[in-house]
């Protein structure tokens, strides 16, 4: 009984849905505010993201006649569930509520599911924009998932352990991993840009070319669930980065400050770049990012 209540609190409140959504919403607002200020504008107020969610949840969701409605409803649910589980397992500060011994691999899998859900969503909504968007998302996923996974596993191989809590505890004693494996850190940070849909690699959602990309035919409640996913991503992915490479943080305050640093870094990179074409982006990952990840991976295998 107590365990069930504990599990529900951990899943839905802290560090699950409510906490991650709140912190993710604030980080997303900071990204928009920094972007506006650097473009000589003023920017939205802090409650803008939450008001957008309320508006989307109050509208009707239109499902096109010729699609498979069941799959169209399941795709956002997949991506939301996987992110809630990944948020629940993430150690905030140095304690983790649901961590276990192999959670590095499980988190890598869970964080790949939102991209797959977008591919499904683009294909099942019968619009040409969705088809083009989902094919672009598939190509860019092939490009970035490999260096992303290799950099994450570099750290695991060094410690001969696959538990994120062990990695965090090691870094609190011996120093953060970005000093030991700088190339893997750089490769990992560059892979975050297409994962969160930021320039210069946001070709799947390019709004001047293919209106909404995979999400063109979504509206109302289903689009609201995709927006919740977007907000959660802004917390979970910087948290993952900080846990793996930047020391983790001895208490939640230090942890959140380090996540803030990652968010600001991603915002500045997004603002000063135009958008790569999909084949140019794909080639960029194979030419520059994959060698960096490979070098550090081989280093961690050979020199423990």
């Amino acid at each position: 009984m107590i365990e069930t209540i504990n599990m529900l609190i951990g899943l839905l409140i802290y560090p699950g849905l409510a906490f991650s959504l709140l912190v993710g919403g604030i980080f997303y607002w900071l990204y928009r505010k920094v972007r506006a200020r650097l473009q000589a504008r003023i920017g939205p107020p802090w409650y803008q993201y939450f008001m957008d969610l309320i508006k989307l949840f109050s509208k009707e969701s239109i499902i096109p006649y010729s699609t498979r409605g069941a799959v169209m409803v399941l795709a956002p649910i997949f991506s939301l569930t996987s992110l809630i589980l990944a948020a629940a397992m993430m150690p905030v500060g140095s304690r983790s509520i649901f961590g276990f011994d192999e959670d590095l691999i499980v988190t890598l899998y869970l964080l790949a599911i939102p991209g797959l859900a977008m591919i499904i969503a683009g294909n099942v909504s019968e619009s040409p924009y969705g088809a083009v968007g989902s094919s672009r998302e598939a190509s860019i996923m092939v490009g970035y998932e490999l260096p992303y996974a290799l950099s994450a596993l570099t750290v695991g191989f060094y410690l001969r352990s696959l538990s994120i809590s062990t990695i965090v505890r090691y870094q609190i004693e011996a120093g953060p991993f970005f000093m030991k494996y700088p190339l893997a850190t750089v490769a990992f940070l560059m892979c975050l840009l297409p994962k969160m849909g930021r320039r210069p690699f946001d070709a799947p959602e390019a709004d001047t070319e293919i209106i909404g990309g995979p999400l063109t035919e979504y509206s109302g409640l289903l689009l609201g669930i995709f927006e919740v996913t977007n907000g959660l991503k802004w917390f979970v992915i910087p948290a993952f980065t900080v846990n793996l490479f930047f020391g983790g943080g001895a208490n939640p305050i230090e942890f959140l400050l380090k996540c803030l640093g990652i968010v600001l870094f991603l915002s500045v990179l997004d603002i000063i770049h135009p958008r790569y074409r999909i084949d140019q982006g794909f080639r960029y990952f194979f030419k520059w990012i994959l060698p960096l990840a490979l070098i550090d991976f081989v280093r961690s295998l050979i020199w423990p």
Partner: protein
Amino acid sequence: MSTVLPIGPFHPALKEAAFIKLEVDGEKVVGGDFKVGYMHRGIEELATRKTYHSNIFLFERVCGICNTVHSTCYTQTVEALMGIEPPERAKYIRTIVFEAERIQSHLLWFGVGMHEIGYDTAYMYMWREREHALEILESICGKRVNFGINTIGGVRRDITPEKERLIKTKLDILERTIGKIGKILVEDKVLEARVKGVGILPKEEARRLCVVGPTARGSGLNMDTRRDDPYAAYPHIDFEVPVEEGGDVLSRTLVRLRELAQSVKIIRQATANLPKGPVASESLPLPTVGEAFGRVEAHRGELVYYLRSNGTNFPERVKVRTPSVVNNNSILPMVVGETIADVPIILASIDPCFACTDRVTVLDTRKNVEKTFTLSELRGRRGR
């Protein structure tokens, strides 16, 4: 096996409504068609029911970005029909307003072009600098758009010495901006990857399609109505016509950038040499029976007006041939063979103005149906 991707009437890449139907195979474009007719307003027919003077204000509203171009060309054609010559000071003031609007239009184009490739930061900065050009226009004409500065026989407002000082300050700011834009365009590697070698229009193809304006000058054709057939104050002003040989999107961008610098130079010369005198001639005869033909160099190319009068105060026929009508023919040859991601920037690089393009709508009153013609249907009718 090709699917149809509509760059349809509603699309974030288009400023106005037009229908470009692309046939794509994966990400590559293999064919397409082009449909106009969504923005037809019947302006040429309405012009036969209003007097010559009222039509100045009507023709300003053909296009949203190039207002004074239409009004100047129409006024010059009517003055040719009536046989009156505006005073010298009026011609210089018309030139100043014309070139200030060219600066405003090219800076708007830069912003839109940057937005099409996703560079929102540069888009915001260029539109911030555009405000300086709009303040010049607001101080001379009283409004930021739809100026109404022309009247038959001259202009309606004068430039006081205080306004000349304001113009000089703003021109200094604009010159610094143009230098900065040049550096922003050149220093960015991602931008270069997106615009270089994309959307090539070879010189022979450009000549065959009869394109005009920066589209033609970017492909090596050296044509400019301000130099070949001078009007207003251009015979007394010294300026260059930029021409590039590449034929791709980058060449057209560089042509527009150099035209901005030339416009600043023209306004400086015109303000420095402004002759004294009246701003409008007092005589207004009725037009004689006959025809007149006038052309100017609009921001997108060569604009042509044809006027026919039957001796009364109402024109009998006014025909407008805007530069976008000919430039839009070059969209399909440039786009076939490129990827979908390049279509918005190629479309934006010829600076299409679909409000100026619209030609014909067919009403079938028996079946009560209204339809537009596609380009291939129109060509089929002419037997080509």
